[in-house]
């Protein structure tokens, strides 16, 4: 890869790593699928480590401070597919890589990858799909990478098999297939009216669209919203989630913590750009926001009832994820910069911690004779440690101080004080967190306090090794860090949300070829372009 350094656009080329590192190792793993699991772990693990390094480097380098546009195949937008890297994309890549690391560690700790072929290949493909989706600036390409990450997720979700898992997997897949169909209907209609696929270009064309086309555009956009809402698992489209997350293996569930965020991210990218107040016709500006808030409220309420009703810890955690989706939808619906910044803080919190909570639930399940459901059992192994971990996670997830959940909720609520829908938002968020507290107190009580003395010498499942503990505890460290460093973090997030709301900049950056940007990114004329019959386009 000499070009990586010699090319005039070499800073841009680093962008390809988050996408092509995983896919390359996926291919490698396909070719190595007959080799020892150890070798596969080495490949997969080092890929994850490298990925983490790269995304961190990209983030700290401040590359995303302005929109970096990477033209695939050197075709300018809107004709070719472009990647757009900005702070938000960078954040998503980081989250993904972080989860991947945690999930990978726990996988190794529990040998989950041993229970069927191709775990690591699918794992890497999942990362490929996720990162591709986070980077793309083209709706159809977004569809393609949704499919990539979905198919990978089907494979991972079903990994290991079992009746309940297979059923959940079937439901998960069928619902998402319907979602993909809707996606194509929506994208197709948008192209059929606006004649383009690039998000920025769509936004621009929308600005010039004749009024008589508004109906179709709105219909298509709302269909697209439904599609993203399926992925985000918003009411009433979340029915696939509880079983899927509860039945799949712990590391996969942990990795899936990012999946719901993909849907929310897509809403932010596509609808946020299309219906931005600066560029969109006034008629469209409030097309989505109120829906988001009300659906978010409904989701939050239903999810909290689910948390109360859940019959085992994993299902409860799944519903907690749903609750966080609801909260995020509410916050996204407000669309102010403050709200956006709050959203992102809560976003990071819920992603990282729910991942960790799934792992913890799995540890508890392994430690108790009758798994993670509520029936009394002999005292659990590593009672004190697991108990305190549960306590901490419960605090964080229920939004009690002093952890991130609380900070996030304060940020969101204080962003909501001057919203028209303040009262319902306050009421829902506060009441649901109370119910979550009640529910989690009950679960903790049932899992750790209400023990019956060991009846017969039931052998306890061997808990995972030291790696497992690392995986379970690292999210807490992240949370603590987020509380301590709340000031710098939230100011960074403020800048990020400012960038997100600066849609005109986004459109300009995407639609004006790099040559127009600061000289750094100027492409040279291709040498072949001397009048020889041979030629590469530019």
């Amino acid at each position, binding site marked *: 890869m000499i070009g990586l350094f010699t090319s005039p656009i070499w800073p841009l080329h680093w962008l390809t790593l988050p996408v092509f590192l995983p896919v390359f190792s996926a291919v490698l793993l396909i070719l190595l699928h007959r080799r020892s699991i150890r070798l596969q772990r080495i490949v997969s693990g080092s890929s994850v480590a490298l990925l983490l390094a790269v995304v961190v480097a990209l983030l700290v380098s401040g590359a995303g401070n302005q929109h970096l546009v990477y033209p695939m195949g050197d*075709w300018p937008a809107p004709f070719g597919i472009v990647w757009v890297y900005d702070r938000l994309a960078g954040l998503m890549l980081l989250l993904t890589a972080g989860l991947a690391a945690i999930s990978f560690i726990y996988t190794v700790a529990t040998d989950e990858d041993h229970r069927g072929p191709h775990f690591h290949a699918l794992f890497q493909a999942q990362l490929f799909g996720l990162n591709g989706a986070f980077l793309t600036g083209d709706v159809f390409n977004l569809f393609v990478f949704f499919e990539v990450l979905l198919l990978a997720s089907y494979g991972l979700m079903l990994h290991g098999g079992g009746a309940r898992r297979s059923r959940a997997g079937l439901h998960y897949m069928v619902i998402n297939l319907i979602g993909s169909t809707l996606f194509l209907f929506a994208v197709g209609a948008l192209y059929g009216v606006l004649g383009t696929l690039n998000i920025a270009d769509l936004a621009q064309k929308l600005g010039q669209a004749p009024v008589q086309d508004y109906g*179709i555009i709105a219909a298509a956009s709302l269909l697209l919203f439904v599609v993203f809402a399926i992925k985000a698992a918003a009411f*009433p489209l979340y029915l696939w989630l509880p079983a899927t997350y509860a039945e799949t293996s712990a590391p996969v569930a942990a990795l899936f913590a990012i999946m719901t965020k993909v849907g929310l991210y897509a809403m932010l990218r596509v609808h946020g750009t299309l219906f931005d107040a600066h560029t969109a016709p006034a008629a469209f500006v409030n097309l989505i926001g109120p829906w988001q808030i009300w659906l978010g409220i409904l989701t939050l309420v239903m999810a909290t009832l689910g948390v109360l009703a859940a019959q085992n810890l994993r299902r409860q955690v799944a519903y907690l994820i749903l609750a966080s989706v609801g909260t995020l939808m509410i916050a996204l619906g407000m669309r102010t910069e403050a709200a956006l910044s709050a959203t992102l803080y809560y976003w990071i919190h819920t992603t990282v911690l729910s991942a960790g909570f799934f792992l913890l639930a799995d540890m508890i399940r392994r430690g108790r004779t009758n798994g993670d459901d509520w029936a009394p059992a002999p005292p659990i192994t590593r009672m004190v440690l697991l108990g305190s971990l549960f306590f901490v996670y419960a605090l964080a997830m229920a939004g009690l101080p002093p952890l991130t959940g609380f900070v996030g909720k304060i940020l969101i609520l204080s962003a909501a004080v001057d919203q028209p829908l303040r009262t319902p938002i306050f009421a829902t968020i506060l009441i649901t967190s109370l119910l979550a507290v009640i529910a989690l107190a009950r679960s903790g009580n049932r899992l750790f*306090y209400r023990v019956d003395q060991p009846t017969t010498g039931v052998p306890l499942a061997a808990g995972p090794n030291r790696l497992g503990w690392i995986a379970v505890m690292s999210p807490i460290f992240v949370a603590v860090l987020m509380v301590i460093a709340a000031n710098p973090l939230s100011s960074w997030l403020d800048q990020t949300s400012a960038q997100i709301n600066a849609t005109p900049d986004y459109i300009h950056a995407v639609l004006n070829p790099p040559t127009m940007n600061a000289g750094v990114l100027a492409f040279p004329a291709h040498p072949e372009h001397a009048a020889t019959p041979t030629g590469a386009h530019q």
Partner: protein
Amino acid sequence: MATLILIVLLPFLSAPIIALLAGWDRRAAPWAAGITTLSALVLLGLLVSHVDLATPQVIQFAWIPQIGLDFAFRLDGLSILFSSLILLIGLLIIVYARYYLAPQDHPGRFFSGLMLFMGAMLGIALSENLIQLVVFWELTSLSSFLLISFWQHRKEARQGARMALAVTGMGGLALLGGVLLLGHVVGSYNLSVILGAGDTLRASPLYLPILLLILLGAFTKSAQFPFHFWLPNAMAAPTPVSAYLHSATMVKAGIFLLARLFPVLSGTDAWLLLVGGAGLITFLLGAYTALFKHDLKGLLAYSTISHLGLITLLFGFGTPLAAVAGIFHLINHATFKASLFMVAGIIDHETGTRDMRRLGGLARKMPHTAALAIVAAAAMAGVPLLNGFLSKEMFFSEALEVAPDFGSVWLLPLLVTLGGVMSVAYSIRFVHDTFFGTPDPDLPQEIHEPPRMMRVPVDILVVVCLAVGIFPALLIGGLLNFAAGAVLNAPPPHFSLALWHGFKLPLLMSTIALGGGILVFVLRRPLTRFHEHGIGRLNAKILYDALLQSLQLAARVVTRTFDQGRLQSMTLWTLITALIAGGIGFLSYHAPLFGPEHHAPAFDGITAVGMLIMMAAALAAVWMHPKRLLALLPMSVVGLGVALLFVRYSAPDLALTQLSVEVITVVLMLLALRYLPAQSTAEPRPRLYRDALIALLSGVGATILTYAVMSRDYENIAGYFLAKSLTEGGGHNVVNVILVDFRGYDTFGEISVLALAALGVFALLQNLRLPQGTPGPGSRSAAHPLLFQTLSQLLLPLTLVFGLYILLRGHNAPGGGFIAGLIVASALITQYLAHGIHHTENRLLIPTHGAIGLGLLLALGTGLASIGAGYPFLTSTFGHWQIPFLGNLELASAMVFDLGVFLVVLGASVLMLVQMAHLGSVPLDKPAKSEGVVS
């Protein structure tokens, strides 16, 4: 000032250390806790003596400045008073607990929990920023949860803890809401600002909601009616905990909040009504219930509730003097109630029971303890020369002051006197039923005084009661004045702490209270009987449990009815949502549904017939679907029709793709059908109708959307592709150039999907145990007809060549790697059809995984190569070469990419087909051959 932060942090820091120490030596825990508390106390003393306290001292650091969230502490009269109370009593409790805990109790857990709680309380007392106060507020709820549930093996301990957490937690969240709104109105969360903004707040429309939310916080914490019920249930905690949390500290947090925000919130009718009303009711109800409790701690709990009500009522009065009185009684109650709890603990500790019906005559067995109890109880009753008397006097006089506001001049004084009467009565009862009278025979005989150090804390507190009662002005006046100033945020009013104010109404009320109390005590039996047949029946806990139960039930019902785990309902919800969304979209603008259709394609009867056949076939598929195999045939008709439509409307590549996909899909389905039931079971009619309706609506929706778009004109970016395809993409077939060049990245994703599908299928089919399907009718006939075998010999090479041809021409004419891959795959499958697995695989074998991997590598490689050349990923290049006599040879890098596509498609489809072909053909334990066929 920085020491202030240290004071708060000390307990938090010591908590984990204590936990560790206890593991090493159980005796170390109380010492560590004690030292921590003591040093915090000393630090506080030093601070107070050094800092000028004429004005409140504040220290703050920015935490999340964007939303005015600071890390800020405040030192003023109230905070000093409250934190010293916390530390002093805390110290005594620690000493007491050191001897109270049984050997099997885990000291580490206990004392570190206690430290966490103490830290949280100090945080509340010393917070300048209200959000921060809420943080500590919630922390007290959490740590108290841990302390109350200390004896986790006891059901009532677990329940009590959870109830306390639920109720106080609710208050905390309400408080948070209130504080956030308050900050919104005032513009800051810092007390320095807020305390000055009383008028702004009272003027704001948000005043009432804010007041309600904050009071909800205060009342739940301070066990005010109707949230009082958690306190008695929290008595399941070890007695030191009760003594500390439920007499001196936690329950006072609510009062503290009232005091803290007194200047901003008080002074309105709403305040008088809510605070005063709640206080009065709690005062009376608590006192009344306490009369009839048989459990020592139960009696104390209700008396605590009553006294908290008294203090609340005082703040409710809203007058400066009332506030002073409130603070005064707060201190007094802390002293005598803590000591009484400890006494109860001692009795429990020595006799093993707290039931006053069984206890009695202990005065002889433990005179010292008895003496302490009598003094403390007297203070509680408000007997002169004891601190309780003074604050109660002030209370009575304030009641007389504000009586007019409560309607009649008589009502309020009457009620408070009644309350006084009852508190005297239960105080007497506490003493009498425990230390005098006759004990229950089966009570252990060898009862003696507790260890000395267990009494010392009580001694100290009782001495305080006496001392303050006798020399009030001297001992407490200054502090009280100082604190009152802080509470009122203004110079405190003049008040006298003399024992003797002359014959005035308050004195009369006190006398009536004492006399009436004795009378009530004498008449207690008939009263008890009356009570237990009446009000005694109803119990707030039952209500609370019922509430929680119904909540639980509701949650279950809602969740189960919505989340049934049934795919059909999931699908239905998804579709309904989509329909609604689309409908809203169309209806939300007054735009015409359809366009003018300027460039309508001419009508063409034959195509129309074809479309009609397709529709009929689709319906036939639905009609036949109960018989699976039959349904497959109309499906293929539809597929064929789609291909023909592509031909008809100028999409040759799509036609080719559709055809090849079609066949492979059919083969896949045939391979699967063997293992599925041949027929569907019938479904209930109503559901079929419902689904038909949804299906119909969806169909109409799809039609409208399609026609709405197609009847319009649109500007598109196609021109660019047509213009650049040849000149810069080097291909005549624009669709193919788009696939491998303009949008090659899409194609890369697409082949990854295919590869993943293959891997997934491979993984799913490993060791899959399926019942063997029913053999067909002709199971005796030839498995592989000769005629077919003979031809397939020829078919394979021919189809391979055909595939190659399609592959190579793709860039310039319909075709390409994808179609080629499928063609070759189907050629291989034909071999399997003609010859069976073994015969085929003995002759041809390729590593399908290898093909997939290699293909992806090729595709990726061309992309990376362009990066190597300094261009973005997948930048293509091409060239023409004149080769003598052979003619013009054209090659494009995109062709290599297409070759990659070819390999992936080939490998993936063959892998899937072969894996399924192997199903059931191998002994079930041994996994299917992973490598498929060919070339």
